[in-house]
């Protein structure tokens, strides 16, 4: 196999996962619905005043984003494991890391990207001051690929455990915390009129690091799980 066929394999795998997702839409719509529900319930619960909502908006959106990414994350490799595709991926002439990257990319397209697109709407509902919108979208744009990559590591580790859902959440949440701190700090700085470039740079660095190492970790975890 040469490089051209590797890239066509990656495209084929992404197209396959996307068309599977298109045929079971509820799986990808569910987390987004969860985000929207929480974001609409918050103003009702804490009252619609600008001061309170505007201050907690970024935090709420980010916490919801983290929890939404855990919803259904155990399904990431489950179907492939159950029907035997994961075995074939291990045995495929193409490097498993590349296939893992394709799975991460599809997961981001289905869960992270819609969240980024939805975030201005959430910011509107939670009355986040307009100055913070761009920073919020940027933090989500940099942060959600990380969420997908780390979720993939956890999902690959727990795929053979049958019901690994609770374990998966316990494994992943501590890893999400630095992301949460930097992302909300970035929005906070902008709202205080300070530059948020430092935090954004940190997020970008984390993202590059995670996306570089995650495929290797996922591939290793899949090999263990298939045994």
């Amino acid at each position, binding site marked *: *196999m040469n490089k051209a*066929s590797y890239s*066509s*394999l990656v495209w*084929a*795998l992404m197209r*396959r996962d996307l*068309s*599977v997702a298109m*045929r*079971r839409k509820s799986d990808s719509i569910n987390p987004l619905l969860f985000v929207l529900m929480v974001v609409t319930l918050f103003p009702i619960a804490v009252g619609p005043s600008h001061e309170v909502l505007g201050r907690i908006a970024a935090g709420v959106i980010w916490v919801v984003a983290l929890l939404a990414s855990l919803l259904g994350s155990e399904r990431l490799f489950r*179907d492939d494991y*159950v*029907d*035997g*595709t994961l*075995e*074939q*991926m*291990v*045995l*495929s*002439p*193409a490097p498993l890391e590349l296939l893992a990257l394709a799975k991460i990319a599809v997961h981001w397209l289905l869960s992270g990207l819609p969240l980024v697109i939805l975030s201005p709407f959430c910011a509107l509902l939670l009355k986040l001051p307009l100055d913070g919108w761009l920073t919020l979208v940027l933090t989500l744009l940099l942060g959600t690929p990380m969420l997908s990559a780390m979720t993939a590591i956890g999902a690959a580790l727990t795929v053979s455990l049958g019901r690994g859902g609770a374990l998966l959440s316990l494994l992943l949440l501590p890893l999400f915390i630095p992301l949460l701190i930097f992302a909300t700090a970035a929005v906070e700085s902008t709202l205080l009129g300070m530059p948020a470039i430092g935090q954004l740079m940190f997020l970008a660095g984390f993202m590059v690091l995670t996306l570089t190492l995650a495929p290797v970790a996922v591939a290793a975890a899949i090999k263990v799980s*298939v*045994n």
Partner: protein
Amino acid sequence: MTLLVTAQHLTSIRAGRVLFADLSLQLHGGDVMHVEGPNGAGKSTLLRMLAGLLPAQSGQLMLFPEHCHDDPDYWRRQLLFIGHKAAVKAELTALENLAIQAQLDGAVIADPWQLLETVGLLGLEDIPAQQLSAGQQRRIALARLWASHAQLWILDEPFTALDVRGIELLQQRFAAHVQGGGAIILTSHQRLSWQPPQLQRIAIHSPTDTGLQYE
């Protein structure tokens, strides 16, 4: 004939039971190896071990010994493994499944419609696999055999859920593959109606319990 597989003193212990011990085998191009044994004897374990999905607890296993030094990934291209999980996506149609299978195998399907006709799925190509019968899903998985250029096939219960015509068809494909210098390792509870020229039988006996022996 070229040596494709050589294994010496393979041992597998699962959950305290010795499934097989000190198993040695050799497979050349043109050989067919029929692994026999009762349920739970460790046939699938042996096949998964030979395919590189399970590490051997002891012993040595080498696939394609002539090539393993100059091209460490050679065996991945020359091995085709179909386990009892068929790797057929339930949401996708037969045609889509064939395409992704071929991509994963690194094979090129010149004419997918021809392939569908060969395995008897023409006319069902746009129905999601979950609505097809077990035998038809099996045919989607086995269609890989017609697209594949791999030398070594490892097939776990390939005849499961197939009808008489399907079994006949599969054995014709086996014969063509062996004729072309390929080799097959398979498990099956039924006797092969086709007599391959170089047939080896390996029987794995019922396991002995070592978990209960205390010193």
